[in-house]
Every structure is written in C-alpha cells, then in structure tokens.
C-alpha cells in the first residue's frame, strides 16, 4: 500500500514489518521520531516485541548485545553523538557476530554543535565491523532495513542503514509499504545457532589468546568478503519479491560516460538531476551511487570502471589529515591497475546544500581537468 512517510517513520515501520523482537531506543535529533513511533506502536499494541527506553546510547547498544545474544531479532536507531557514544559497543556487537540492524540518521559531529546531515558520524565507525548501507529515498530506507536483516543473519554481521538527517529523515515521500505476509515470505524468522540458555552453559566473549583472536578476526574478514555477494543476492531476491532491485552500486546513465559523479546517500537523487541537466547540454555525464560502504564494494567498482574514466567523488564528510573518505576508499580499491582518475570534492558539511548547480560545476571541473593530476580535497560551497 502506498503511504506518504518521513524517513524516520519508514525506518520504524520497517522494524515492525521485520517482526523485530526487541527494540531499544534513546532520543536524539534528527532520529527521535523513529524512537517515538516505536514507543507509540508498542503502546497501541501494534508492535508485539519488547521495547526498552534506555538511559543512554551506550546502554542501547549494550541492551542490543544482551538481547541478540539471547537470540532475539533487534532494532535501534540513532544519530551523530549517539552513534559516537555507542562506539565501544559497536565493536563488541560485531565481534560477537550478532546480526543486529540499526538505522543511523546522518548528522554532523560536534564541536561546534550542528544538527544537519553530514556523514562524519557513520563513516567514523568504519572499522567497527558493521556493514553500512546508504539510502537515497525513503522507499530505499524501508527496503534496506528489510534486506539488512536477511543479509546480516546470513553472514552473522551487524548492519547499519544510513539516511540523511532532515533531507530524508524529516521529508515526506511516497513509500510503497508491503503487506506483512509479503515481508514474512521474504524474511523468515531469525534462527540463531547458539543462544544464551541455562541449558547450554557456554561463555560469550570470554578471554582468548592471540591465536584464537586472529582466527576469529580472519573469519570475520572472510564473512565480510562474502557479504559482497550476499548483498547482491538478497538485492535480487528483494527485486523478485517486490519489484525493486538493489545492489552495492547504482549506476545512472553511465554506459557512455567518461566523467562520473560519484555520490552516496540522498545526494544521489540530486546527482541524477545534475546528470540530466548536463546531458541536455550535450555532455556525457553519469552518476554512480555507492550503496555499500562496508563491505567496501571494491570488486564491483573495479568491474564498473573503464580505463580513462574520471570519477568526481563528492564527499559530505572529511577525515582531517586525509581527505574525503569515499574518495580515499575508492582510490584504494582502484589501485594500481584501473587507469581511472579519482578527483575528490568535499561539499555540504554540516548540512550545507549540495545543489544541482554545484554538482554540475564539480562535473565540469573534473571533465576538463588534467587526468594525470587528479584533484585532491577540493572544498566547494553552495554559492548562495
């Protein structure tokens, strides 16, 4: 059924449709509505799972650790400082190989205080062992939450579904909400192999030596690598069931394009408009939207890239001392044989607009740049 939904509500509704057994939350702008909607659904009896209103995000993720170890399908949503506060537990949940799913509503990290969209919160959790998926519409938010449970429970790694603060979280868009029976057919109940149970007295997370630690981390690496194909597979299954197919990458008008705008999140929709505008000017523009950040879709990216291609990477994030994070990761994935050039642009930090005009300008600069001297870390601002 088509509904007009905010991104936050699409996320909470997806959790209900996924038959989440334990939802945990804590308020933070701009995620709060997802938390409130879960509380409301619980109060009305529409959400049959357990609902915990924790006293901090650190405790939210600790409760997720406990609930998932006890064998429950879990959900939470957070943003910015909340995600940063969870950091210790993010490692713990991933290391425990628990398929938790969390929504992160992108918001810049303080100081200074800023409430608006920026990927510095989610990307600074890149080494925690969580998969990360970036959405460009509210439909994709709902769909990606559902797919994430299936992917996470197959590879036994947690997944973070990321959407832009306000741009998606507070914007109303038409969303096709599937029937419960359709979701049930796509997503079977979670059946963990080992759970916390007094009848089976085992330890979870107990002390190990270097040899076991390394072996466990290698298994994690192997499962992260496997996730690349699982993401594609589940995206195809989802497409067959609901008519909307997803993969690690989403290419738009790239077939004959030499210079490509590379984006993530809601900027992807703006980039399509920019590509259309450039095409109207007779220019061969394309857009590549990165859906997965972890596992990094290196293989898919190498297959996509052709020699001589110029990638104009738009980063709404910045790693001080290193540059835009997507640009860095893309360069690392393409090194050394791709013969494509990667040009980094940092834009829209702290919620600044990334407009159709700005993206066209970036595209034109890269298209006319000296490909042997790629642009690094160019900071661009909305001229208004």
């Amino acid at each position, binding site marked *: 059924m088509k509904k007009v939904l905010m991104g936050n509500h699409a996320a909470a509704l997806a959790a209900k449709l996924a038959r989440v057994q334990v939802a945990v939350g804590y308020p933070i702008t701009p995620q709060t509505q997802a938390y409130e909607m879960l509380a409301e659904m619980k109060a009305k009896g529409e959400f049959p799972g357990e609902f915990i209103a924790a006293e901090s995000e650190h405790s939210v993720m600790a409760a997720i650790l406990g609930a998932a170890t006890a064998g429950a399908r879990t959900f939470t949503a957070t943003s910015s400082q909340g995600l940063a506060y969870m950091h210790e537990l993010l490692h713990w949940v991933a290391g425990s190989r628990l398929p938790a799913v969390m929504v992160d509503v992108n918001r810049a990290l303080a100081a200074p205080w800023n409430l608006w969209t920026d990927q510095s919160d989610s990307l600074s959790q890149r080494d925690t062992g969580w998969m990360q998926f970036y959405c460009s519409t509210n439909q994709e938010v709902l769909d990606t939450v559902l797919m994430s449970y299936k992917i996470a429970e197959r590879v036994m790694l947690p997944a973070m579904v990321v959407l832009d603060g306000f741009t998606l979280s507070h914007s109303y868009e038409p969303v096709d909400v599937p029937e419960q029976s359709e979701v049930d057919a796509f997503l079977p109940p979670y059946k963990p192999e080992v759970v*916390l149970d007094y009848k089976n007295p085992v330890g979870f997370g107990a*002390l190990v030596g270097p040899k076991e630690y390394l072996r466990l981390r290698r298994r994690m690496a192997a499962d992260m690598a496997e996730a690349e194909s699982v993401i594609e597979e589940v995206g195809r299954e989802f497409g067959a069931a609901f008519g909307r197919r997803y993969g690690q990458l989403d290419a738009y008008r790239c077939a004959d394009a030499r210079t490509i705008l590379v984006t993530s999140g809601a900027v992807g929709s703006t980039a399509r408009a920019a590509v259309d505008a450039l095409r109207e000017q007779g220019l061969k523009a394309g857009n590549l939207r990165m859906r997965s950040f972890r596992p990094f879709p290196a293989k898919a990216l190498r297959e996509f890239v052709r020699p001589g291609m110029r990638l104009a990477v738009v980063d709404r994030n910045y790693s001080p001392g290193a540059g835009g994070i997507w640009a860095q990761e893309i360069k690392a994935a393409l090194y050394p044989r791709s013969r494509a050039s990667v040009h980094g642009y940092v834009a829209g930090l702290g919620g600044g607009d990334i407009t159709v005009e700005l993206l066209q300008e970036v595209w034109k600069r890269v298209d006319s740049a000296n490909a042997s001297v790629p642009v690094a870390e160019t900071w661009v601002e909305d001229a208004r």
Partner: protein
Amino acid sequence: MKTSIPVEERMSAGHLACQGCGATMSMRYALKGLGEKTVFVIPACCWTVLAGPAPKSALDLPVLHSPFASAAATATGVKAGLTARGDRETTVVAWAGDGGTFDIGLQALSGAADRNEDIIYVCYDNEAYMNTGVQRSGGTPEGAWTMSTPGKAGSARPKKDLDAIVLAHHPAYFATATPAYAEDMTRKFAKARTIKGFRFLRILSPCPPGWKTDPKDSAKVSRLAVQTGLFRLYEVENGRMRLNMPVANRKPVGEYLRLQGRFKGLSAEAEAAIQASVDKIWNEGKS
C-alpha cells in the same frame, strides 16, 4: 554440622582466583542460592578472568561478557531477549565489581533500577580496582592505601554511599552480604530469585592482595567487618529495612583495620574518626 546451604556445586575448583579470594567464595554461595535456571552478565572485573580463558569455564552456567560500563544494560537486553523468545523463568544476573558499579557502570545501573528491570544486580565490592592491580574506586574507604592513593594517608575521601544511591531508586529488593555469613548470603540469593523487578545485592568481598591480608584470614576479616559494625548485613523490601545481624557488643573497628596492610598508615585520630562514624550510624539506628 547441619546447614541450610544446598550441596550442589555450580562452580568448579579450577578457577584462576588468588588464594582466599572473596569473589569466588561469594560466587559459590550465590550460585547455590540462585539455582540452575540462571544466566550471568559479567562486565570487566576480576571475574572476567576468574572463570578461565575460552573454551574452558569454572562456572556451570552461561556467561555473557560485557564492556565495563554495561553490566546492567546488557542484562536488561538479555532479559528482554529471553522474554521475547517466550522464556520467562530464567533469572538474569549482572555480576560486577565495585569499579563497574560505583564508578563506570553507575549510569547503566541507575537506568536499569529506574526502569525496574527484572534482573538481579550483584556488586562484589572489594573496595578498589583489583583486577588492574589495586587502584582507588568510589568504593574505596577513607584511609585505605591503593596504588593510585599512595602514601601513608591513603584515600582521602569517604566511601561513596552506593546503598543510598540504589535505594533512592526504590528497588524491589536490596540486600548486603559478605561470605563469612554464608547461610545469610545463600538465603538472600534464593530469596532474590523469587522476587520480580529490580533486585540489588552488595557483597563486601575480601581481597588478600588488595587489602594486604593473609589469604587464610579472608573469612575472619569478612566476619570482623560485621562484628565491628563497619559493614551492616541488612535487607530492604517494599521500602522497609531489616537488620539481619544486630550486633549487641560491637568489637572495636581497630580489630578489622589492623588485620589489613592497606590501613597500615592510618593514624590514631583517623581510626578514632572511623570508630566515631560507625558509632553514629548504629546509634541513629537505635532511635
């Protein structure tokens, strides 16, 4: 000798604790009181190590290890997860040291107590960060030497009144215990198991290396803590306090303090002040 303590053992002798460890004595009696249908959450503390490295365990029940600040929150999640899966009978126990309770875990403890989570939270209070080699915590008493409060004077601040903090949350059940009084301790765990809602036990847990006591004196020092009146054995249910071990003729606190090397630097005035504060608490209790 007849005893009310169940004979079943749920902890084996092959643990990694120091000789005379109060935390293992406490665990043993706790498990006898709690019974089989129990799962544990253990944050960073001595017990992270004591059960032994994977894949072995000295405990005959499942343990989920959690980060330092997270015992109460992780136990909250475990209870919710079990409930969601239709298991309403398993007892969920968070088992933390004083550092993980008085200090870094206080926020999560307060949250779980405030929500009246259906869990048992146990603080085995050995009055310092013992697992990292004896540093001061909020549970360290005034005048006690630690590695982070060196010198003769020891810790400058009085022990944080955790009991008052926890009681301010109106828990369903609250009790103190110490291993010298094994029957009392076992009974309290057996009782806690039958009560719904947030239950809290603080155990005064002797630590020979941290208290600088002879391992053979652990039970003795635990008993003297009660006999001198420094540590009161009591329960609070429905807001009503009951003293379990009224001490008619309290021994001087010096008998407890002088058994422990950590109080070696304590001056006569400091000892007198401790005696006066104990007397004051007991005299208040009389009125």
